[in-house]
Structures are given as structure tokens and as C-alpha cells.
């Protein structure tokens, strides 16, 4: 059915989001807790170490974990307040079933699981195995990510499984694989302060990866010159040596222009290039036309900025490249990353102390979750689903015939397009909130409404779960145990702090119960996440991301283990590519020549302004967790639109007035924030809010042809002053998409 079973306001009243501002047990001094549990933040890819204070099986506060090497006690506001999720009033405590016209009613676990299994088989018998799809998330632990990949292929027997890392890291991953043969940040963060030149491309680290700012400031204190590329002057850009306010979509102009100048001035390492790389001739040929003037026109910046960037980067002794969604969320995201990485390889500054590059993971387990086989094109260990050897290896681990493993399925956006087209009829979703996070929200809602059966595993009733036929209440990170792989490639241990509340279950138990009902119980005999990890270790053995030598004990003893770690006596690999040995079979890095091309939708007379989207520091992804925490909502109560005063004046938009941002696909009305810190041809709206406040009402479903990442960072819009909205949605609480 997959339509809202009751009026929206009624669903919001009952299931939220509501904010919680008082911890379990209240604000009164708690005295000594029963215990401190050393674990990690449940939010972004930095996965900071934190200690949760537990009293009477409730998380009542936190204490910094100063011995954990990555963050040494440091936390952002999300990390500080994450513990407020425990005992949240919106928490789902029973399976739910939609009742048309009434909303959701609690049902037994048996009924909810039986019905889901029955519907999966009904749809598959009628329309074929691939007509039932599974969508998962990059915030799942490695164990759960592995489980979901196996569940989809062995229990459901569908090719169509993909995950929301498709909205996050896949362009960086694809580029890294093409150039280096391995998909992982090349260096631990401890190399950043040792670099003399740093290029931060499309990474608003102050809001999206706050702990990284300390590493950058340490580098600055050590004399590093820092270059930042961003259409907005972010807090990190304010005091660096060179801020390049690049036009969204113009990044290749900067990178190719810098390389052009570096070749001209002799700032490339010809010896390294000839000994350790392939393909530089093509790159040299391709950047010949990217003179500073031509490159500046593409990037929308003065040519002198590109020359200055080359002058900082080119002759430096050591250097470090960091990139993130700003260059990755494009229909040419992979090419953007490859053009940036060319700057690293051309100087030979990689695989040594203070020399390297890193992609900044956005989602909690953005790195690990894509290695364990829940991508439509990958099997565990980063193996290729179309490679017969890889298929045979995994088939043996799983104890199934190789031919029974489905081949490559659809990635997230095409998968939802197939739902919209009526080709996929059923969907199981875990840890994914497309009704906030995917582009072109009207289209996504239409797609969900076409499903014959829709089941969701989640711990809150997310904006997407409202459309479900059955909701299965899962577990918070602190209610389960498992591992994630941080932005550095460090595999870490999330410890269990409390039991799930009565009525909810650990996600892995739900999935194993479903597998049993689908007749595959013998393949899912796990008694704990540790048993899943033991199988994962074997499944990754010999793969690119080899976890075989990693045990939970070793993680605890070493405070994390970097993969690859191929044997039990191996200490792990913090820095890849030492000795200039790369991941391709020939051991070389493969340069990729990249030409600039326009975005899928450029501004024109009708829609003359560029919309770019991103985050604020107090919210995480689709906000389904952070919009429920009062302190975090207080920081930014609602979304806003940053507009340069020159642009605002043109359209008569007043400070703090409302502005309508409208694209060919939809619109959002948010408060205007008129600031000089953004390009005058670009507006910015953070994407964490739903419904009429969703930036993704406007964004476009154009995707990168290689990574299938959507072009969140650029679409054409028109803006106009708007009255304060006063419809039913505007009257919802701000955390639910209303207006304060």
C-alpha cells in the first residue's frame, strides 16, 4: 500500500519527531554511574571515542574518552548530546502495522515477521525474484552491513540491494579505486599536521567533520599553507592562506589549471611518475588547454587564484589532500576526485610521513559499510560481484552454489526509479531515510506510494517509515555490539551499553529471524554479532579490504586496527602505499585524464541561480536522530537559505524574511540568511529537514555514470521573497518540518 495511513499531523503527534531535552533520570546530579562504557559516537565517519555513563540500564550522560587516539576526548555537539537518544519518547517499542485511515497499530513480532516473509515470497512468485528490493545504510555496523548483503542475496535472493552510502562516499571510492586500486583514505589523520601544503577541496570540515579542524590547525601552527575550495567561506576557510570561492561544478577547472601551471613551472616529480605511475602523458596532454585564464572561466574565479594555488601546492616538501562531498556530489563526482588526486600523484607526495590524501567519510560507517557487500556491485571484502573467482570464494564461505548469487543489481536512485516504474513491487529498508535524503522528493514519494509491500526496520518512525506497511523496531548503537571502520580506515569496537527497551530487538536478530522465515535459517545461525564478525573476517580474507587478521581483542588492545590486516600476527596498515606500491596488479598508480563538462542542469534565464546543499554541525544526515534532541535543534531550529546581499537585493529578499527556492522539480520555503560569505550566484540550503522544508524537493536525480551518486551540489533554481507559510505543515513543530 505504502501511503500515509492517517493524516500527517496525527502521525507526527504520536511518533514525532519530538525533541527531548532532559536526560534519562533528569538533570539532577547523578553521582557515580554504575559504569562507564568506552564506545564511539553513533554519528559521522570520524567515529570519535566516547564514554557513556550508565546507571540502572539507562544512558544518563557522557564522559570524554581522552585516551582514544583519534579525538583524544574532543567531541562535536552531536557527540556530546548523542546520549539523549536513549529512552527517547519517540522510540518504537513494538512492531507496527498500518491500518488505513487510522495510522499504525502495535502487532506481535510473529505476525509482523510472518507477514513480511510471506509478502516477500508472494511478490517474488508473481513478479520475479528481483521485484523485491533491499535498501540499507552506511551507519550500520560492519557486522550488520555484511549480514544485509548476505540476507539480500541468500535469503531474499534479489540482485537489488543497495545502500545510502550511494549518497555519500561512492564517488571518492570509485576514483580512489581507479587511480590507486584501493578504496580507502591513504593516510591516518596523524599525517595531516606533518604536511607543509594542504588542499581542502569541497569539505566544510567545521560543520561536517569538526574534529578534523584540530588536525588542520595543528598543521597551520607547524607552518603549513592551506588552500580551501568552497563556494562558501566556511569557518575553516576564514583564516587559511588561500580561499578559492569556486563556482559549484567548476572544481576540475581549479585542479587541471593547477596541474597546468605545475607542469609549466617544473613542479611535477618526473622520476616518480615514470617509475610508479601510468597514464601521465594523457593527463599532460589534457591539461595543456587549462591555462589559468581558461580554468578560471570554468571555475568562476580570478586566474590569479589558480596560479597562487599551484605556487603553494607545487613546490611543497610534503602535502596532504582532503576532499569530501563538495566535489563528490556531482554528476561528474568521480572525475572531480580523480582530477584532485592527479595533483597528489604528479608530485609523488604519497605513502610517506606527512604526504598523502584522504576522503572524509560522512556517514558513521561510510568506509566499512561499503566493503562488506551491501553495495549492488560488491561482495564482502570489496570483491567484485561480476568476477567469477570472487563469486566462487564468497559462495564457498556462504555455503551456496556460485550461480545462486545474483549478479549486479540496481543502485539506490535507479532502484527507486524502478519502483516508480512499477518494476520493483516490494521493499525492505533499514537505516535509510529517502524521504529526506534522496533528490527530487516528490518523485521519491510517488515511488513509495506505488509499492505493494513496504517494510522498515528502524528505531524511530522516520519520514520514510511513515509509508511502511510494517515497521520492525530495531536497536540503537549502544544497545548492540559490533565494529565500524572510521574515516582513517581504523576498525573500531562499539560496545553494548544497555539492553534494547522491551518490544524492540537488535537489528541483526530481526534480520536472522526473517531469514529463518524465508527458509534460509541454516545460513544465518548466528548467536551474536561476534559470530557474524568471525564469518566476515573469513569472507574478507584475500580481498582488497582484508579484515582476516582483525579480532575484537586486537581492536581493544590497539584502540583500533587499520585494514588491510591479512593475518593474526599483522599489526594493521595505518598508511597505505608506503614505498610507492599501489593497489593495482602492476603496483603503479594509474593517472586518469579528466575533462571538465557542465553539470546536468546549469542555470538559465528561467532558473538563474545555483542551489547547493549541505549540512550544519548540529544535525546528522536526514536528521531523524538529531532532530529529536532539543539542544541540537536549538542550535539551528530550522533550515535557512544563505544568499549574498547582491543577489538578495536583486530579488528584494530581506534579512530573516522568507524565501522561496524553486526548481523544475519542486520548491522549499525557508528563512533567508543574507551573508557576504557565499558566492553571489549561488544559494545554500542545508538538507536535514523534511516536507516543505526539504532542500531535496529542489535537487535533481542526475547521477554520476560511474558511482551513481546524485548531483546534490548543483541544480538550477529561481528565488523570490515569500510570505511566512501558514499551512498545515508549517504549523508542525520545526523538528517535523514546521516553522518556529
Amino acid at each position, binding site marked *: 500500500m505504502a501511503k500515509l495511513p492517517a493524516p500527517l499531523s496525527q502521525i507526527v503527534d504520536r511518533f514525532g519527531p519530538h525533541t527531548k531535552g532532559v536526560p534519562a533520570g533528569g538533570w539532577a546530579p547523578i553521582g557515580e554511574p554504575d559504569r562507564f562504557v568506552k564506545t564511539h559516537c553513533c554519528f559521522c565517519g570520524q567515529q570519535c571515542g566516547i564514554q557513556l555513563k550508565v546507571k540502572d540500564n539507562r544512558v544518563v550522560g557522557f564522559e570524554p574518552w581522552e585516551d582514544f587516539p583519534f579525538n583524544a576526548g574532543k567531541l562535536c555537539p552531536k557527540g556530546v548530546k548523542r546520549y539523549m537518544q536513549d529512552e527517547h519518547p519517540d522510540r518504537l517499542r513494538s512492531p507496527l502495522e498500518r491500518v488505513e485511515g487510522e495510522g499504525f497499530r502495535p502487532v506481535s513480532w510473529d505476525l509482523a515477521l510472518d507477514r513480511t516473509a510471506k509478502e516477500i515470497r508472494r511478490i517474488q512468485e508473481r513478479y520475479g525474484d528481483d521485484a523485491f528490493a533491499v535498501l540499507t545504510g552506511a551507519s550500520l555496523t560492519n557486522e550488520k552491513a555484511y549480514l544485509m548483503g548476505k540476507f539480500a542475496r541468500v535469503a531474499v535472493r534479489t540482485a537489488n540491494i543497495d545502500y545510502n552510502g550511494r549518497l555519500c562516499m561512492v564517488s571518492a571510492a570509485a576514483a580512489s579505486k581507479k587511480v590507486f586500486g584501493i578504496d580507502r583514505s591513504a593516510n591516518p589523520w596523524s599525517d595531516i599536521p606533518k604536511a607543509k601544503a594542504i588542499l581542502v577541496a569541497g569539505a566544510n570540515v567545521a560543520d561536517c567533520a*569538526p574534529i578534523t579542524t584540530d588536525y588542520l590547525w595543528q598543521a597551520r601552527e607547524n607552518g603549513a599553507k592551506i588552500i580551501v575550495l568552497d563556494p562558501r567561506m566556511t569557518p575553516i576557510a576564514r583564516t587559511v592562506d588561500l580561499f578559492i570561492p569556486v563556482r559549484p561544478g567548476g572544481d576540475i577547472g581549479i585542479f587541471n589549471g593547477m596541474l597546468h601551471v605545475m607542469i609549466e613551472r617544473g613542479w611535477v616529480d618526473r622520476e616518480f611518475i615514470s617509475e610508479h605511475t601510468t597514464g601521465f602523458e594523457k593527463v599532460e596532454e589534457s591539461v595543456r588547454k587549462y591555462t589559468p585564464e581558461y580554468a578560471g572561466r570554468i571555475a568562476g574565479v580570478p586566474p590569479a587564484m589558480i596560479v597562487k594555488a599551484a605556487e603553494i601546492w607545487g613546490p611543497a616538501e610534503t602535502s596532504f589532500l582532503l576532499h569530501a562531498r563538495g566535489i563528490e556530489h556531482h554528476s561528474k563526482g568521480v572525475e572531480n576526485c580523480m582530477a584532485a588526486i592527479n595533483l597528489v600523484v604528479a608530485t609523488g607526495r604519497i605513502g610517506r610521513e606527512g604526504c598523502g590524501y584522504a576522503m572524509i567519510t560522512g556517514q558513521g560507517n561510510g568506509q566499512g559499510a561499503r566493503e562488506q557487500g551491501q553495495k549492488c556491485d560488491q561482495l564482502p571484502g570489496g570483491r567484485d560481484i561480476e568476477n567469477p573467482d570472487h563469486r566462487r570464494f564468497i559462495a564457498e564461505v556462504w555455503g551456496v552454489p556460485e550461480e545462486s548469487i545474483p549478479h549486479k543489481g540496481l543502485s539506490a536512485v535507479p532502484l527507486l526509479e524502478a519502483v516508480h516504474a512499477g518494476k520493483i513491487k516490494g521493499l525492505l529498508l533499514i537505516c535509510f531515510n529517502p524521504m529526506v535524503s534522496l533528490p527530487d522528493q516528490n518523485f521519491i514519494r510517488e515511488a513509495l506510494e506505488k509499492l505493494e509491500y513496504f517494510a522498515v526496520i528502524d528505531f524511530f518512525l522516520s519520514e520514510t517509515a511513515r509509508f511502511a506497511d510494517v515497521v520492525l523496531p530495531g536497536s540503537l548503537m549502544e544497545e548492540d555490539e559490533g565494529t565500524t571502520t572510521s574515516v582513517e580506515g581504523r576498525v573500531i569496537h562499539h560496545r553494548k551499553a544497555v539492553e534494547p527497551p522491551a518490544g524492540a530487538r537488535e537489528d541483526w536478530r530481526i534480520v536472522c529471524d526473517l531469514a529463518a522465515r524465508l527458509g534460509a535459517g541454516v545460513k544465518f545461525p548466528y548467536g551474536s554479532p561476534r559470530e557474524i564478525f568471525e564469518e566476515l573476517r573469513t569472507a574478507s580474507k584475500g580481498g582488497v579490504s582484508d579484515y582476516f587478521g582483525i579480532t575484537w581483542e586486537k581492536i581493544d588492545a590497539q584502540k583500533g586496527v587499520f585494514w588491510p590486516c591479512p593475518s593474526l600476527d599483522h599489526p594493521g596498515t595505518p598508511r597505505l602505499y608506503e614505498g610507492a606500491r599501489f593497489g593495482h596488479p602492476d603496483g603503479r598508480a594509474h593517472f586518469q585524464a579528466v575533462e571538465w563538462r557542465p553539470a546536468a542542469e546549469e542555470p538559465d534565464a528561467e532558473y538563474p541561480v545555483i542551489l547547493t546543499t549541505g549540512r550544519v554541525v548540529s544535525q546528522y544526515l536526514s536528521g531523524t536522530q538529531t532532530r529529536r534532541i532539543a539542544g541540537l535543534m536549538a542550535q539551528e531550529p530550522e533550515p535557512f537559505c544563505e544568499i549574498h546581499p547582491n543577489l538578495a537585493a536583486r530579488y528584494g529578499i530581506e534579512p530573516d524574511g522568507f524565501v522561496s527556492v524553486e526548481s523544475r522539480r519542486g520548491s522549499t520555503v525557508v528563512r533567508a540568511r543574507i551573508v557576504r560569505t557565499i558566492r553571489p550566484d549561488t544559494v545554500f540550503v542545508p538538507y536535514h529537514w523534511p516536507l516543505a522544508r526539504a532542500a531535496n524537493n529542489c535537487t535533481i536525480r542526475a547521477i554520476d555514470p560511474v558511482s551513481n551518486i546524485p548531483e546534490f551540489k548543483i541544480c538550477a533554481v529561481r528565488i523570490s521573497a515569500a510570505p511566512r507559510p501558514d499551512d498545515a505543515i508549517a504549523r508542525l513543530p520545526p523538528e517535523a518540518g514546521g516553522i518556529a
Partner: protein
Amino acid sequence: MSELAFFIDYSRCIGCRACVQACEECDTHRGVSMIHLETIRRADTVQTAPQVCMHCEDPICARVCPADAIKQTPDGVTQSALKPRCIGCSNCVLACPFGVPKYFGAIDQMMKCDYCYDRTSAGKRPMCATVCPSQALAFTTREEIERKRQGTAINLWKFGGEVVRTKISVIVPSGVSEIRIGESALSRAGGPAGATEDVAVLLGEI
């Protein structure tokens, strides 16, 4: 081993408010944050500045208190007003040059940052400086600051003719020995003095 001290470096502040969120977790005033984050002319800049109690050597808030409710510990930490003594007159609120003390009507008492005394007196670091992700707030030794950071840590303030020395130091460009309020930029910007933060001007569009 040298004594740990509190340092503020405004050039590192990213405005994330982790300090504000963490402060309300302190056991002595759970649920109420005692640190402020100032947003400075957001229309023109992303500069922000955290403000804790500076713990003046000669705290004016205590001097103007008619009820003698504000005490200074022997190690130089100025405390919130004592509950039985505070008469809620707000003299301290008006007198503080840094704008730190706050009067809470619901409890008829002045409260302010007390250097996380429950933590610092037990050898722990203050909550705000521990969590600060950019280490704009740092609780460390003066030696470490001098070794690891550029600029100078100073604690001498001049508000017009009023000279104030504080327990907490701020990091400013090398060569600066005092801060004259209204005359000296607090930012340790890497760019040239007076560099614009207007992106249109950077792009050459007026």
C-alpha cells in the same frame, strides 16, 4: 610538571557550540550552560568567539557584590554567587567587563562559569576545553602552548583606563602584549590585516 591552564584561541573557533552543549553536562550546574558563543556580525563573517569566565585576578564582580556572595578560591577561581548570600541585585552582571555572570530569576541567584571546579580541582580538564573539537579552548600547560602554537598567550586587558589581569589567557599575534578593547582585533587571521570576507569582493564583483 607545570600547572595546567586555560587558553582561548579565537582564530581556531569554528562556532560549533560543542562547548555550550558540554557545559550543561557539568555536575555542579547540570542542565544549564555557563559558556556563551558569540556570533560576530554573521552577515559579514563566520567568525565566532567562545566566552567563559576569565577569572580575573582581582574580580570586579566580587568587589561590587554588596552581599559578599562571590568568593575566589586560593587558586584564583572566582565562583558563582553563594546561594544563601546572593540577593539577586545583578551588580556583578552589570560590572563584569566580559559580560559573563548571569542572573537566574527562577532561583534568584547569579551563576557563571566556575572553571569546572568539580573537575579541575580533581585533576580533570574542564568539559568545554576537553571537547572543543578545534581546540580553540585548550586546557594545557603554558609550555605546550608555547611549543605547539604560533602567537603569544597573554592575559592583560585594558578596558579604557581599566586594567584587568585574568587567570585565562588568549592567544594573539606575536608581539602583542596587551589587549585594548575596541582597538585590537582578536582574530589571528592568516590573511593581510583588514582582508575582506565578502566573497563577491574576492571574486572582483562589486
